[in-house]
Protein backbone atom coordinates (compact mmCIF):
# COMPACT_ATOMS: atom_id res chain seq x y z
CA UNK A 1 0.00 0.00 0.00
CA UNK A 2 2.62 2.47 1.09
CA UNK A 3 4.78 2.08 -2.00
CA UNK A 4 2.01 2.55 -4.48
CA UNK A 5 4.01 4.99 -6.56
CA UNK A 6 6.83 2.50 -6.92
CA UNK A 7 4.27 0.02 -8.25
CA UNK A 8 3.23 2.78 -10.60
CA UNK A 9 6.76 2.91 -11.96
CA UNK A 10 6.99 -0.84 -12.28
CA UNK A 11 3.63 -1.05 -14.00
CA UNK A 12 0.20 -2.04 -12.87
CA UNK A 13 -2.16 -4.52 -14.48
CA UNK A 14 -5.85 -4.83 -13.80
CA UNK A 15 -6.97 -8.47 -13.83
CA UNK A 16 -10.46 -9.74 -14.32
CA UNK A 17 -11.19 -13.18 -12.86
CA UNK A 18 -14.36 -15.05 -13.74
CA UNK A 19 -15.56 -18.43 -12.62
CA UNK A 20 -16.41 -20.30 -9.47
CA UNK A 21 -14.34 -20.07 -6.35
CA UNK A 22 -12.69 -16.74 -6.96
CA UNK A 23 -12.25 -16.35 -3.20
CA UNK A 24 -10.19 -19.51 -3.08
CA UNK A 25 -8.11 -18.20 -5.93
CA UNK A 26 -7.53 -14.94 -4.04
CA UNK A 27 -6.45 -16.86 -0.92
CA UNK A 28 -4.06 -18.85 -3.04
CA UNK A 29 -2.55 -15.66 -4.45
CA UNK A 30 -2.05 -14.08 -1.03
CA UNK A 31 -0.41 -17.24 0.21
CA UNK A 32 1.97 -17.05 -2.75
CA UNK A 33 2.88 -13.55 -1.58
CA UNK A 34 1.40 -11.72 -4.50
CA UNK A 35 0.33 -8.19 -3.71
CA UNK A 36 -3.29 -7.57 -4.58
CA UNK A 37 -5.24 -4.42 -4.16
CA UNK A 38 -8.50 -2.77 -5.16
CA UNK A 39 -10.46 -5.99 -5.30
CA UNK A 40 -13.97 -5.32 -6.59
CA UNK A 41 -16.90 -7.56 -7.28
CA UNK A 42 -18.63 -7.36 -10.64
CA UNK A 43 -21.84 -9.37 -10.62
CA UNK A 44 -21.93 -12.87 -9.18
CA UNK A 45 -19.16 -14.42 -11.23
CA UNK A 46 -16.45 -11.83 -11.76
CA UNK A 47 -14.05 -9.82 -9.68
CA UNK A 48 -11.32 -7.44 -10.73
CA UNK A 49 -8.17 -6.50 -8.93
CA UNK A 50 -4.82 -4.86 -9.59
CA UNK A 51 -1.43 -6.48 -9.36
CA UNK A 52 2.10 -5.49 -10.21
CA UNK A 53 3.38 -6.17 -13.68
CA UNK A 54 6.23 -8.27 -12.26
CA UNK A 55 3.76 -10.54 -10.49
CA UNK A 56 2.01 -11.50 -13.71
CA UNK A 57 4.05 -14.66 -14.14
CA UNK A 58 3.24 -15.86 -10.64
CA UNK A 59 -0.43 -15.73 -11.56
CA UNK A 60 -0.11 -18.64 -13.93
CA UNK A 61 0.23 -21.50 -11.46
CA UNK A 62 -2.73 -20.69 -9.22
CA UNK A 63 -4.83 -19.87 -12.28
CA UNK A 64 -4.23 -23.31 -13.74
CA UNK A 65 -5.11 -24.99 -10.46
CA UNK A 66 -8.38 -23.10 -10.04
CA UNK A 67 -11.48 -23.13 -12.18
CA UNK A 68 -11.20 -19.47 -12.99
CA UNK A 69 -10.48 -17.62 -16.18
CA UNK A 70 -8.14 -14.67 -16.18
CA UNK A 71 -8.16 -11.65 -18.43
CA UNK A 72 -6.03 -8.58 -18.28
CA UNK A 73 -8.19 -5.57 -18.86
CA UNK A 74 -6.12 -2.55 -18.10
CA UNK A 75 -2.46 -1.69 -18.26
CA UNK A 76 -1.01 1.38 -16.62
CA UNK A 77 2.24 2.75 -15.28
CA UNK A 78 5.83 3.18 -16.35
CA UNK A 79 6.56 0.60 -19.06
CA UNK A 80 3.18 0.98 -20.69
CA UNK A 81 3.51 4.73 -20.65
CA UNK A 82 6.91 4.45 -22.28
CA UNK A 83 5.54 2.09 -24.86
CA UNK A 84 2.79 4.52 -25.72
CA UNK A 85 5.34 7.27 -25.86
CA UNK A 86 7.39 5.20 -28.26
CA UNK A 87 4.48 4.46 -30.56
CA UNK A 88 3.59 8.13 -30.52
CA UNK A 89 7.21 9.22 -30.73
CA UNK A 90 6.44 11.20 -33.86
CA UNK A 91 4.59 13.68 -31.71
CA UNK A 92 7.45 13.97 -29.25
CA UNK A 93 10.00 14.41 -32.01
CA UNK A 94 7.73 16.95 -33.64
CA UNK A 95 7.35 18.90 -30.41
CA UNK A 96 11.09 18.91 -29.75
CA UNK A 97 11.86 19.90 -33.32
CA UNK A 98 9.29 22.65 -33.12
CA UNK A 99 10.84 24.11 -29.99
CA UNK A 100 14.33 23.77 -31.41
CA UNK A 101 13.24 25.56 -34.56
CA UNK A 102 11.58 28.36 -32.60
CA UNK A 103 14.68 28.62 -30.43
CA UNK A 104 16.98 28.85 -33.42
CA UNK A 105 14.76 31.30 -35.24
CA UNK A 106 14.38 33.51 -32.17
CA UNK A 107 18.12 33.86 -31.93
CA UNK A 108 18.74 35.03 -35.45
CA UNK A 109 18.94 38.46 -36.91
CA UNK A 110 15.74 38.98 -38.80
CA UNK A 111 15.74 42.64 -39.55
CA UNK A 112 17.92 45.70 -39.75
CA UNK A 113 16.07 48.96 -39.59
CA UNK A 114 17.83 52.24 -40.09
CA UNK A 115 15.99 55.41 -39.27
CA UNK A 116 16.93 59.00 -39.84
CA UNK A 117 19.69 58.41 -42.36
CA UNK A 118 19.94 59.69 -45.90
CA UNK A 119 20.06 56.96 -48.55
CA UNK A 120 23.79 57.39 -49.01
CA UNK A 121 24.54 57.06 -45.32
CA UNK A 122 22.13 54.18 -45.00
CA UNK A 123 23.92 52.33 -47.76
CA UNK A 124 27.23 53.00 -46.04
CA UNK A 125 25.91 51.78 -42.72
CA UNK A 126 24.53 48.63 -44.29
CA UNK A 127 27.87 47.93 -45.89
CA UNK A 128 29.71 48.39 -42.62
CA UNK A 129 27.20 46.17 -40.86
CA UNK A 130 27.73 43.53 -43.51
CA UNK A 131 31.45 43.65 -42.84
CA UNK A 132 30.81 43.34 -39.12
CA UNK A 133 28.71 40.27 -39.71
CA UNK A 134 25.37 41.84 -38.89
CA UNK A 135 23.40 40.27 -41.69
CA UNK A 136 19.96 38.84 -42.06
CA UNK A 137 19.92 35.24 -40.95
CA UNK A 138 23.08 35.15 -38.87
CA UNK A 139 22.78 33.74 -35.38
CA UNK A 140 22.94 36.52 -32.84
CA UNK A 141 25.61 34.95 -30.69
CA UNK A 142 28.03 35.40 -33.56
CA UNK A 143 27.33 39.10 -33.66
CA UNK A 144 29.08 41.57 -31.42
CA UNK A 145 27.53 43.34 -28.54
CA UNK A 146 25.26 46.31 -29.22
CA UNK A 147 27.77 48.69 -27.65
CA UNK A 148 30.56 47.38 -29.83
CA UNK A 149 28.47 47.79 -32.95
CA UNK A 150 27.65 51.33 -31.94
CA UNK A 151 31.27 52.21 -31.35
CA UNK A 152 32.48 50.66 -34.58
CA UNK A 153 29.80 52.33 -36.61
CA UNK A 154 30.56 55.77 -35.27
CA UNK A 155 34.23 55.14 -35.89
CA UNK A 156 33.88 53.89 -39.42
CA UNK A 157 31.06 55.93 -40.87
CA UNK A 158 32.27 59.50 -40.95
CA UNK A 159 28.90 61.04 -41.65
CA UNK A 160 27.52 59.94 -38.30
CA UNK A 161 27.34 62.10 -35.25
CA UNK A 162 25.61 59.53 -33.18
CA UNK A 163 23.95 56.23 -33.79
CA UNK A 164 21.66 54.50 -31.36
CA UNK A 165 21.74 50.75 -31.64
CA UNK A 166 18.99 48.74 -30.11
CA UNK A 167 18.21 45.08 -30.38
CA UNK A 168 14.51 44.45 -30.11
CA UNK A 169 13.82 40.76 -30.36
CA UNK A 170 15.32 39.74 -33.65
CA UNK A 171 15.54 43.18 -35.21
CA UNK A 172 18.32 45.69 -34.91
CA UNK A 173 17.11 49.26 -34.83
CA UNK A 174 19.52 52.00 -35.73
CA UNK A 175 18.60 55.55 -34.88
CA UNK A 176 20.94 57.75 -36.85
CA UNK A 177 21.86 61.37 -36.37
CA UNK A 178 23.90 62.62 -39.28
CA UNK A 179 26.44 65.32 -39.11
CA UNK A 180 24.96 68.50 -40.50
CA UNK A 181 28.08 69.67 -42.23
CA UNK A 182 27.81 73.31 -43.08
CA UNK A 183 28.54 74.02 -46.70
CA UNK A 184 31.75 75.87 -47.12
CA UNK A 185 31.14 79.45 -48.07
CA UNK A 186 32.11 79.99 -51.65
CA UNK A 187 32.74 83.64 -51.16
CA UNK A 188 35.28 84.57 -48.63
CA UNK A 189 35.13 87.79 -46.84
CA UNK A 190 37.99 90.11 -47.28
CA UNK A 191 41.17 88.55 -45.99
CA UNK A 192 44.92 88.52 -46.13
CA UNK A 193 47.08 85.48 -46.30
CA UNK A 194 49.67 85.16 -43.57
CA UNK A 195 52.31 82.58 -42.83
CA UNK A 196 51.63 79.93 -40.22
CA UNK A 197 55.17 78.72 -39.81
CA UNK A 198 58.71 79.72 -40.14
CA UNK A 199 59.61 78.74 -43.69
CA UNK A 200 61.37 79.48 -46.94
CA UNK A 201 59.03 80.07 -49.81
CA UNK A 202 59.57 77.71 -52.69
CA UNK A 203 56.46 78.12 -54.76
CA UNK A 204 53.66 80.60 -54.91
CA UNK A 205 50.32 80.38 -56.56
CA UNK A 206 48.17 83.40 -55.93
CA UNK A 207 44.59 83.31 -57.13
CA UNK A 208 43.59 86.69 -55.87
CA UNK A 209 45.28 89.44 -53.94
CA UNK A 210 48.57 91.19 -54.09
CA UNK A 211 51.70 89.23 -53.55
CA UNK A 212 53.93 90.74 -50.90
CA UNK A 213 56.78 88.26 -50.55
CA UNK A 214 59.07 86.77 -53.16
CA UNK A 215 60.37 83.28 -53.82
CA UNK A 216 63.14 82.12 -51.53
CA UNK A 217 62.13 84.67 -48.90
CA UNK A 218 62.32 83.57 -45.31
CA UNK A 219 59.11 84.22 -43.49
CA UNK A 220 58.14 84.19 -39.87
CA UNK A 221 54.82 83.02 -38.45
CA UNK A 222 52.21 85.73 -38.83
CA UNK A 223 54.03 87.50 -41.61
CA UNK A 224 51.89 88.88 -44.41
CA UNK A 225 52.23 86.86 -47.59
CA UNK A 226 49.43 88.03 -49.84
CA UNK A 227 47.61 91.24 -49.17
CA UNK A 228 43.89 91.43 -49.63
CA UNK A 229 43.96 95.12 -50.47
CA UNK A 230 44.43 95.78 -54.13
CA UNK A 231 44.33 98.78 -56.35
CA UNK A 232 46.02 102.09 -56.40
CA UNK A 233 47.74 103.57 -53.44
CA UNK A 234 44.90 105.79 -52.27
CA UNK A 235 41.78 103.81 -53.23
CA UNK A 236 42.48 100.27 -52.20
CA UNK A 237 39.77 97.64 -52.59
CA UNK A 238 39.50 94.88 -50.01
CA UNK A 239 39.27 91.42 -51.60
CA UNK A 240 39.56 87.89 -50.33
CA UNK A 241 43.12 86.93 -50.97
CA UNK A 242 43.38 83.31 -52.00
CA UNK A 243 46.20 81.12 -53.07
CA UNK A 244 48.68 78.51 -52.12
CA UNK A 245 52.06 79.43 -50.78
CA UNK A 246 54.32 76.44 -50.51
CA UNK A 247 57.11 76.84 -48.09
CA UNK A 248 59.95 74.69 -46.99
CA UNK A 249 59.81 73.95 -43.30
CA UNK A 250 61.96 71.91 -41.01
CA UNK A 251 61.03 69.36 -38.43
CA UNK A 252 63.34 67.77 -36.02
CA UNK A 253 62.58 64.33 -34.78
CA UNK A 254 64.24 62.11 -32.25
CA UNK A 255 63.83 58.37 -32.22
CA UNK A 256 65.10 55.60 -30.10
CA UNK A 257 65.08 51.97 -31.11
CA UNK A 258 66.47 49.04 -29.17
CA UNK A 259 68.54 46.59 -31.15
CA UNK A 260 67.14 43.62 -29.30
CA UNK A 261 63.55 43.55 -28.34
CA UNK A 262 61.14 40.90 -27.29
CA UNK A 263 57.47 41.21 -27.73
CA UNK A 264 54.45 39.03 -27.77
CA UNK A 265 52.47 38.06 -30.81
CA UNK A 266 49.66 35.65 -31.42
CA UNK A 267 50.88 32.53 -33.12
CA UNK A 268 47.61 32.09 -34.96
CA UNK A 269 46.80 28.95 -33.03
CA UNK A 270 43.50 29.17 -31.29
CA UNK A 271 40.93 26.99 -29.65
CA UNK A 272 37.30 27.71 -29.36
CA UNK A 273 34.97 26.37 -26.74
CA UNK A 274 31.26 26.70 -26.54
CA UNK A 275 29.28 26.28 -23.35
CA UNK A 276 25.73 26.56 -22.21
CA UNK A 277 25.29 28.07 -18.78
CA UNK A 278 22.04 27.24 -17.09
CA UNK A 279 21.98 28.86 -13.71
CA UNK A 280 25.29 27.85 -12.19
CA UNK A 281 25.60 24.67 -14.24
CA UNK A 282 27.86 24.65 -17.26
CA UNK A 283 27.29 22.26 -20.12
CA UNK A 284 30.03 22.05 -22.73
CA UNK A 285 28.55 22.04 -26.21
CA UNK A 286 31.56 21.98 -28.47
CA UNK A 287 35.30 22.20 -28.05
CA UNK A 288 36.41 19.72 -25.43
CA UNK A 289 39.68 19.09 -23.74
CA UNK A 290 42.29 21.49 -22.51
CA UNK A 291 44.54 23.59 -24.63
CA UNK A 292 48.28 22.96 -24.63
CA UNK A 293 49.35 26.58 -24.83
CA UNK A 294 51.91 27.86 -22.40
CA UNK A 295 51.07 31.49 -22.97
CA UNK A 296 47.64 32.42 -24.03
CA UNK A 297 44.96 35.03 -23.95
CA UNK A 298 41.38 34.23 -23.28
CA UNK A 299 38.36 36.02 -24.57
CA UNK A 300 34.82 35.15 -23.62
CA UNK A 301 31.60 36.33 -25.06
CA UNK A 302 28.24 35.75 -23.45
CA UNK A 303 24.99 35.62 -25.23
CA UNK A 304 21.65 35.16 -23.55
CA UNK A 305 19.31 32.88 -25.43
CA UNK A 306 15.81 34.03 -26.19
CA UNK A 307 12.62 32.22 -26.96
CA UNK A 308 10.22 34.40 -28.89
CA UNK A 309 10.17 37.53 -26.76
CA UNK A 310 11.35 36.01 -23.52
CA UNK A 311 14.89 35.79 -22.34
CA UNK A 312 15.81 32.32 -21.17
CA UNK A 313 18.02 31.79 -18.13
CA UNK A 314 20.45 30.15 -20.51
CA UNK A 315 23.68 31.78 -21.56
CA UNK A 316 25.60 30.72 -24.61
CA UNK A 317 29.24 31.27 -23.92
CA UNK A 318 31.92 31.43 -26.56
CA UNK A 319 35.45 31.11 -25.30
CA UNK A 320 38.35 31.81 -27.58
CA UNK A 321 41.82 30.93 -26.39
CA UNK A 322 44.63 32.27 -28.49
CA UNK A 323 48.19 31.15 -28.18
CA UNK A 324 50.73 33.82 -27.49
CA UNK A 325 54.35 33.64 -28.44
CA UNK A 326 57.33 35.62 -27.44
CA UNK A 327 59.33 36.82 -30.40
CA UNK A 328 62.89 38.06 -30.29
CA UNK A 329 63.83 40.67 -32.78
CA UNK A 330 67.41 41.60 -33.44
CA UNK A 331 68.56 44.30 -35.76
CA UNK A 332 72.00 44.91 -37.07
CA UNK A 333 73.14 48.50 -36.70
CA UNK A 334 72.42 49.33 -40.31
CA UNK A 335 68.97 47.83 -40.16
CA UNK A 336 68.24 49.58 -36.92
CA UNK A 337 69.11 52.97 -38.38
CA UNK A 338 66.94 52.31 -41.38
CA UNK A 339 64.04 51.19 -39.23
CA UNK A 340 64.43 54.16 -36.95
CA UNK A 341 64.41 56.54 -39.89
CA UNK A 342 61.28 54.90 -41.24
CA UNK A 343 59.72 55.23 -37.86
CA UNK A 344 60.59 58.88 -37.62
CA UNK A 345 59.26 59.55 -41.09
CA UNK A 346 56.00 57.87 -40.28
CA UNK A 347 55.76 59.88 -37.11
CA UNK A 348 56.32 63.15 -38.98
CA UNK A 349 53.80 62.19 -41.67
CA UNK A 350 51.21 61.75 -38.99
CA UNK A 351 51.76 65.27 -37.73
CA UNK A 352 51.64 66.90 -41.16
CA UNK A 353 48.58 67.84 -43.17
CA UNK A 354 47.78 65.54 -46.05
CA UNK A 355 49.05 67.72 -48.87
CA UNK A 356 52.51 68.12 -47.38
CA UNK A 357 55.44 66.21 -48.81
CA UNK A 358 58.74 65.29 -47.29
CA UNK A 359 61.47 66.58 -49.50
CA UNK A 360 64.51 65.35 -47.74
CA UNK A 361 65.94 64.18 -44.48
CA UNK A 362 69.22 64.49 -42.77
CA UNK A 363 70.57 62.59 -39.85
CA UNK A 364 72.01 65.12 -37.50
CA UNK A 365 73.18 62.86 -34.80
CA UNK A 366 73.38 59.15 -34.29
CA UNK A 367 74.61 57.04 -31.45
CA UNK A 368 74.42 53.47 -30.28
CA UNK A 369 74.45 53.06 -26.58
CA UNK A 370 73.21 50.37 -24.22
CA UNK A 371 71.88 48.37 -27.15
CA UNK A 372 69.83 51.26 -28.36
CA UNK A 373 70.05 53.31 -31.50
CA UNK A 374 69.43 56.98 -30.91
CA UNK A 375 68.78 59.16 -33.92
CA UNK A 376 68.01 62.78 -34.33
CA UNK A 377 66.75 63.55 -37.82
CA UNK A 378 65.91 66.77 -39.57
CA UNK A 379 63.17 66.59 -42.14
CA UNK A 380 62.69 69.06 -44.94
CA UNK A 381 59.03 69.40 -45.66
CA UNK A 382 57.16 71.29 -48.31
CA UNK A 383 53.74 72.38 -47.21
CA UNK A 384 51.18 75.08 -47.62
CA UNK A 385 51.92 77.73 -45.06
CA UNK A 386 49.26 80.26 -46.04
CA UNK A 387 46.36 80.95 -43.75
CA UNK A 388 43.54 83.39 -44.20
CA UNK A 389 43.27 86.33 -41.86
CA UNK A 390 40.19 88.50 -42.19
CA UNK A 391 40.62 92.17 -42.89
CA UNK A 392 38.55 94.33 -40.67
CA UNK A 393 37.48 97.66 -42.09
CA UNK A 394 39.73 100.48 -41.01
CA UNK A 395 42.41 98.04 -40.02
CA UNK A 396 45.15 99.94 -41.81
CA UNK A 397 45.25 102.96 -39.54
CA UNK A 398 44.75 100.90 -36.39
CA UNK A 399 41.71 102.89 -35.37
CA UNK A 400 39.17 100.10 -35.34
CA UNK A 401 38.64 100.23 -31.62
CA UNK A 402 37.46 103.84 -31.75
CA UNK A 403 35.30 103.12 -34.77
CA UNK A 404 33.75 100.07 -33.29
CA UNK A 405 32.97 101.89 -30.12
CA UNK A 406 31.35 104.77 -31.94
CA UNK A 407 29.53 103.50 -35.02
CA UNK A 408 27.64 106.75 -35.76
CA UNK A 409 30.69 108.86 -36.48
Amino acid sequence: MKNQWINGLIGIVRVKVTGRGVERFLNQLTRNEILIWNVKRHGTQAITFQIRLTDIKKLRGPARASECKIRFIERAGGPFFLQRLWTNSGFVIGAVAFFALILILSNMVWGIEIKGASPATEYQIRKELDDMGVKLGTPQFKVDNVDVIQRELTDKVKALTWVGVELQGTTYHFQVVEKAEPEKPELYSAQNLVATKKATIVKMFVEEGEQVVELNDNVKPGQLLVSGLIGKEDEKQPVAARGEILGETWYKSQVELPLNSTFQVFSGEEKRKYHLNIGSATIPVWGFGDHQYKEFEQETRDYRLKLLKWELPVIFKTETIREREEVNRTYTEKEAIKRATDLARKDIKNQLPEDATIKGEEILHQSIKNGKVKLSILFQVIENIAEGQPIIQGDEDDSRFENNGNPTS
Partner: protein
Amino acid sequence: MAKKWSQLIRNWMSQTMDLPPDVMMDLPRITMVGQIHIYIENHRGLLAFSDREVRLLLEQGQLLVKGKAFVIKTILPEEILLEGKIDQVIYINE
Protein backbone atom coordinates in the same frame (compact mmCIF):
# COMPACT_ATOMS: atom_id res chain seq x y z
CA MET B 1 -10.93 -32.00 24.00
CA ALA B 2 -7.22 -31.27 23.63
CA LYS B 3 -7.91 -28.08 21.72
CA LYS B 4 -10.20 -26.89 24.45
CA TRP B 5 -7.56 -27.59 27.04
CA SER B 6 -4.94 -25.57 25.18
CA GLN B 7 -7.39 -22.71 24.77
CA LEU B 8 -8.06 -22.71 28.48
CA ILE B 9 -4.35 -22.70 29.31
CA ARG B 10 -3.69 -19.86 26.91
CA ASN B 11 -6.58 -17.86 28.32
CA TRP B 12 -5.27 -18.39 31.82
CA MET B 13 -1.73 -17.41 30.76
CA SER B 14 -2.80 -14.19 29.12
CA GLN B 15 -4.79 -13.27 32.17
CA THR B 16 -2.21 -14.09 34.80
CA MET B 17 0.92 -13.06 32.88
CA ASP B 18 -0.66 -9.95 31.34
CA LEU B 19 0.18 -10.96 27.77
CA PRO B 20 -1.83 -9.53 24.83
CA PRO B 21 -4.66 -11.96 24.11
CA ASP B 22 -4.58 -11.56 20.31
CA VAL B 23 -1.03 -12.85 20.21
CA MET B 24 -1.57 -15.59 22.75
CA MET B 25 -4.85 -16.89 21.47
CA ASP B 26 -4.78 -16.25 17.69
CA LEU B 27 -7.77 -13.95 17.91
CA PRO B 28 -8.53 -11.52 15.14
CA ARG B 29 -7.65 -7.89 15.76
CA ILE B 30 -10.17 -5.60 14.15
CA THR B 31 -9.64 -1.90 13.64
CA MET B 32 -12.42 0.21 12.28
CA VAL B 33 -12.40 3.80 11.16
CA GLY B 34 -15.98 4.94 11.44
CA GLN B 35 -18.03 3.06 8.94
CA ILE B 36 -15.67 3.39 6.04
CA HIS B 37 -12.65 1.24 6.86
CA ILE B 38 -12.25 -2.05 8.53
CA TYR B 39 -8.85 -3.60 9.06
CA ILE B 40 -8.71 -7.18 10.16
CA GLU B 41 -5.53 -8.92 11.26
CA ASN B 42 -5.08 -12.58 11.99
CA HIS B 43 -7.69 -13.96 9.64
CA ARG B 44 -7.28 -17.36 8.04
CA GLY B 45 -8.54 -16.71 4.53
CA LEU B 46 -11.31 -15.25 2.47
CA LEU B 47 -14.46 -17.35 2.23
CA ALA B 48 -16.82 -15.12 0.31
CA PHE B 49 -16.57 -11.69 -1.16
CA SER B 50 -19.23 -9.54 -2.75
CA ASP B 51 -19.86 -5.82 -2.63
CA ARG B 52 -22.40 -6.29 0.20
CA GLU B 53 -20.84 -9.07 2.24
CA VAL B 54 -17.41 -10.35 3.18
CA ARG B 55 -16.91 -13.62 4.98
CA LEU B 56 -13.57 -14.40 6.59
CA LEU B 57 -12.31 -17.58 8.14
CA LEU B 58 -10.88 -17.21 11.62
CA GLU B 59 -8.99 -19.58 13.92
CA GLN B 60 -12.29 -20.18 15.61
CA GLY B 61 -15.43 -19.64 13.61
CA GLN B 62 -15.99 -16.98 11.00
CA LEU B 63 -16.35 -13.22 10.71
CA LEU B 64 -19.13 -11.74 8.61
CA VAL B 65 -18.96 -8.11 7.56
CA LYS B 66 -22.08 -6.60 5.99
CA GLY B 67 -22.46 -3.30 4.28
CA LYS B 68 -22.37 -1.63 0.89
CA ALA B 69 -19.89 -1.04 -1.94
CA PHE B 70 -17.08 -3.15 -0.56
CA VAL B 71 -13.63 -2.93 -2.08
CA ILE B 72 -10.68 -4.88 -0.76
CA LYS B 73 -7.92 -2.33 -0.64
CA THR B 74 -5.23 -4.78 0.34
CA ILE B 75 -5.18 -8.43 1.06
CA LEU B 76 -2.24 -10.25 2.62
CA PRO B 77 -2.11 -13.79 4.02
CA GLU B 78 -3.18 -12.65 7.51
CA GLU B 79 -4.40 -9.11 6.97
CA ILE B 80 -7.17 -7.50 5.02
CA LEU B 81 -8.19 -3.88 4.58
CA LEU B 82 -11.75 -3.40 3.50
CA GLU B 83 -13.33 -0.21 2.29
CA GLY B 84 -16.95 0.69 1.80
CA LYS B 85 -19.88 1.40 4.08
CA ILE B 86 -19.89 -1.09 6.93
CA ASP B 87 -23.19 -1.82 8.64
CA GLN B 88 -22.54 -4.93 10.72
CA VAL B 89 -19.68 -7.05 11.95
CA ILE B 90 -20.87 -10.44 13.06
CA TYR B 91 -19.02 -13.37 14.68
CA ILE B 92 -20.30 -16.70 13.64
CA ASN B 93 -19.51 -19.64 15.89
CA GLU B 94 -20.30 -23.13 14.70
